[in-house]
């Protein structure tokens, strides 16, 4: 039973490192997954070269949605926005270290969807992340 919810997921879920809000921020977006009620908001600050200097997430939902948000937000600090655009489903799954069926995939990818929507508009993310 434990394999799937490897330490890291439970740990991040219970003791998140990146939870919070940034006010002011340069980018911010919030979305939810109505199927399960997962909700994620991500705030981002960038410097003049579009490099992410600070990031935080807030929200509620299942362990996978929250842990993936925590891991994702941690991973983007220091990256620039182009690198964020290049992030894929596979990157998230690698951070989580597990395989997921279609329903849980939506939980795992919600944070990436929110992040991308915040930095370059919702229209451009629907396709690949649903």
């Amino acid at each position, binding site marked *: *039973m434990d394999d799937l*919810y490897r330490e890291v997921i439970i740990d991040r879920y219970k003791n998140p490192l990146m939870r919070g809000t940034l006010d002011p921020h340069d980018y911010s977006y919030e979305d939810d997954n109505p199927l*399960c*009620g*997962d909700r994620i908001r991500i705030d981002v600050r960038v410097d003049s070269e579009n490099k992410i200097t600070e990031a935080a997430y807030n929200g509620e939902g299942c362990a996978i949605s929250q842990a993936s948000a925590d891991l994702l937000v941690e991973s983007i600090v220091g990256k620039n926005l182009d690198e964020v655009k290049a992030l894929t489903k596979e990157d998230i799954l690698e951070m989580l270290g597990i395989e997921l069926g279609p*329903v849980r995939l939506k939980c795992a990818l919600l944070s990436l969807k929110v992040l991308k929507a915040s930095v370059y508009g919702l229209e451009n993310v629907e396709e690949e992340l649903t």
Partner: protein
Amino acid sequence: MASAISNTVLDIDRIRAEFPILHRETQLGAPIIYLDSAATSQKPRQVIDIMSRYYEQQNANIHRGIHRLAEEATQSFEEARNKIAHFINANSSKEVIFTRNTTEAINLVAYSWGRANLQAGDMLLLTEMEHHSNLVPWQMLAAEKDLHLEFIPVTDEGLLDWTAFEHFLLREPRLVAFTHMSNVLGTINPAAEMVSLAHQAGALVLIDGAQSAPHLKVDMQTIGADFYAFSAHKMCGPTGIGVLYGREKLLASMPPFLGGGDMIRRVHLRSFTPNELPHKFEAGTPAIAEAIGLGAAVDFLESVGLEKIHQHEQLIVSYALERLEEIPGVVVYGPRPEKKGGVVSFKLDGVHPHDVAQLLDTVGIAVRAGHHCAMPLHERFHLPATTRASFYLYTMEQEIDRLVEGLYKVKEIFS
């Protein structure tokens, strides 16, 4: 193998032997524990086989054919309709309309009866415990026709608020539409009583029987509903077919819904004459094999006995409630066992239902997590989602034991 409770009413091993999927070894080396029958039931061998046999020996298009295969297929198809009419004690097989599922059956009523009979300002009375299938069609109709929707509230215990119901009836709704049994709370609503009050108030009544027809003896003469909808796939039958029961006079008075082959008596370039019931509402080639499969499912359920199935599920659900409530942090929603069917929805403190379901899956237990197509009901209880275990005639108490063990493990992982 099977123990005390499971065998009180049914010969559980014999029943389980009929369901091939219950014996399929999973990757975990043991058969699956399937506690998701409210979403869809498993299928007994005879239902699966009769459909294969149909395709191997009888397959033909029906109604218009003169050759032997077409006659055999037509006969099998119409016999299935007769079986279903008998199963729900309809007055005539003309009252049995085949649809794709419960959802289409309800939409048929909204489009055909609703658009022809309702006017701006008319009120429809629903309940807070409806499945989306018995909400959205009425919302769409209300938007088109400018109707009022009202909702009988659900009490904390998970029952309909009777005072509110009577109060709303004073406002003379044109239609009362409610679920016979909640797919989340398990609540069995007092259908016959509600129909009788609604009729006194001058309303027609549509009952969503998706969760009741599979589990209770439903008798159209006793219940008295004007429309009753259900799906084959939840009652040991195939996907792709459902039923709308409607009182003959009412159906006869309604305009057609879908247009096309079979639903007509005569067609010219610019006009047509509709066919008789039930064909008037069955446009195009119907789900022939599926109707025959549903006929076999009904035979199967009757051979076991609906009363016995209900009794068995009552024992299982009582046991499940007892065992679940002993787990610290578990909160179960819905009424006491006497007032409900074999559905238990619950939350486990500190763990999201999706995590519960997924962790249970890793030990071979299939439950469902989410809003179960009843978002408004979850809003009512301020829950984003619940975990649901649902039972059927093949559910054994050992499976409940395994569920409880599993939940203890989930707690441990999240502790």
